[in-house]
């Protein structure tokens, strides 16, 4: 860890760093703090050229900003070695190699060092990792990694798991729609009119067991980007899960526990964390979580023909 006097403090950019940018620089920050479930993640950029991205993230994630100090700080020293397309390809098959407190990716797109006693991770990686305009959203991946790492430090095991899903709040309860890319999560969010419910997020959500009763699960929004990102912090009891399947008609069937368990597991963002060495322990966490959720709430397969009317009518029959 190199000596960084700025560590742990919120800095404003030094005025006059660029004469023509004075007006902007005065209000720009090099660090923002985001609340993700019970974790506060600070995102910091070393280079002034990246601060505008932070400003944009700040606007997008307005409902999740906090002034509290982060449980974990990610500091990015940006590089520009990959085109956006190259970065997408590189990260798709990416693996991390750890050595003491240093890690690097097989793709060469990310490297870093960490001091987990101080909750600090310094990443030397592509600037597009934090670019909210990227089609393939690496920022969600980065925040998931920060979240799970902070959970490991703070709680040992994550109190909430992040899952690929579209959440709709309906009659005070959350319905979760899950499936791989192109399964229809965003279409469901788009088809959700005011009378049908409120979109929580169409991409990623936090799912957690109630501290009072482990049989009760809740869904919570987080600062995750999608076509319908969460504008505000929302939490609601989880009522049911729908596994999406495109079809010529719309209908539902209850799926058996084994199928539900396996399919839910595939939608959980792997709770991998910086410094993790035991892959089986991570898989076991996902397995236990998927088992508990599918035991607690009904899971249906929703065959869906992309028609809003039949969708809400079918879901209404379950109410």
């Amino acid at each position, binding site marked *: 860890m190199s000596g960084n006097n700025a560590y742990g403090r919120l800095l404003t950019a030094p005025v006059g760093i660029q004469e023509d940018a004075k007006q902007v620089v005065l209000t720009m920050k090099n660090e923002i703090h985001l609340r993700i479930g019970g974790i506060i993640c600070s995102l910091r950029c070393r280079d002034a050229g990246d601060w505008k991205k932070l400003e944009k993230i700040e606007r997008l994630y307005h409902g999740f900003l906090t002034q509290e100090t982060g449980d974990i700080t990610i500091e990015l020293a940006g590089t520009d070695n990959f085109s956006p397309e190259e970065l997408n390809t590189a990260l798709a098959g990416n693996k991390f190699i750890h050595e003491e407190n240093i890690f690097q990716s097989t793709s060469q797109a990310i490297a870093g060092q960490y001091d987990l006693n101080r909750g600090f991770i310094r990443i030397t990686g592509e600037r597009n990792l934090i670019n909210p305009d990227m089609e393939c959203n690496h920022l969600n991946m980065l925040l998931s990694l920060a979240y799970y790492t902070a959970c490991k430090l703070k709680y040992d095991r994550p109190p909430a798991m992040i899952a690929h899903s579209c959440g709709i709040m309906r009659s005070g309860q959350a319905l979760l729609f899950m499936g791989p890319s192109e399964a229809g999560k965003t279409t469901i969010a788009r088809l959700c009119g005011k009378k049908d419910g409120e979109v929580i997020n169409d991409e990623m959500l936090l799912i957690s067991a109630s501290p009072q009763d482990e049989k009760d699960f809740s869904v919570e929004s987080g600062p995750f980007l999608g076509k319908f990102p969460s504008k505000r912090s929302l939490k609601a009891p989880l009522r049911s899960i729908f596994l999406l399947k495109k079809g010529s008609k719309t209908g539902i069937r209850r799926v058996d526990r*084994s199928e539900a368990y*396996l399919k839910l597991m595939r939608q959980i963002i792997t709770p991998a964390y910086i410094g993790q060495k035991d892959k089986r322990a991570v898989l076991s966490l996902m*397995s236990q979580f998927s088992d508990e959720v*599918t035991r607690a709430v009904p899971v249906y397969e929703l065959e869906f023909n992309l028609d809003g009317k039949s969708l809400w009518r079918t879901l209404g029959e379950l109410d």
Partner: protein
Amino acid sequence: MITDNRMVQAENIIWRRIGDDVVIIKDDGLATHVLNKTAAYIWELCDGKRGIDEIAASLCERYDVSPEEARADARETIENLTKAGIIKYI
């Protein structure tokens, strides 16, 4: 090739009982196997202490099945589990 050696569950897997089934996932997170009630019972007997004969005897005790049938079922299931790489001989 099935022998009378004892079998043990592979180390590179995690497994969980879900209802009557046993769901097994290899630690690459990709390959999954769902075992029905009988296969799950045989799977749980692969504890490094039993061979096919002992497993077949346990099947006879638990289910209404002849020794020949139990041995054939145990042999077939173990062959499948071995091929899938989720049990191994010791």
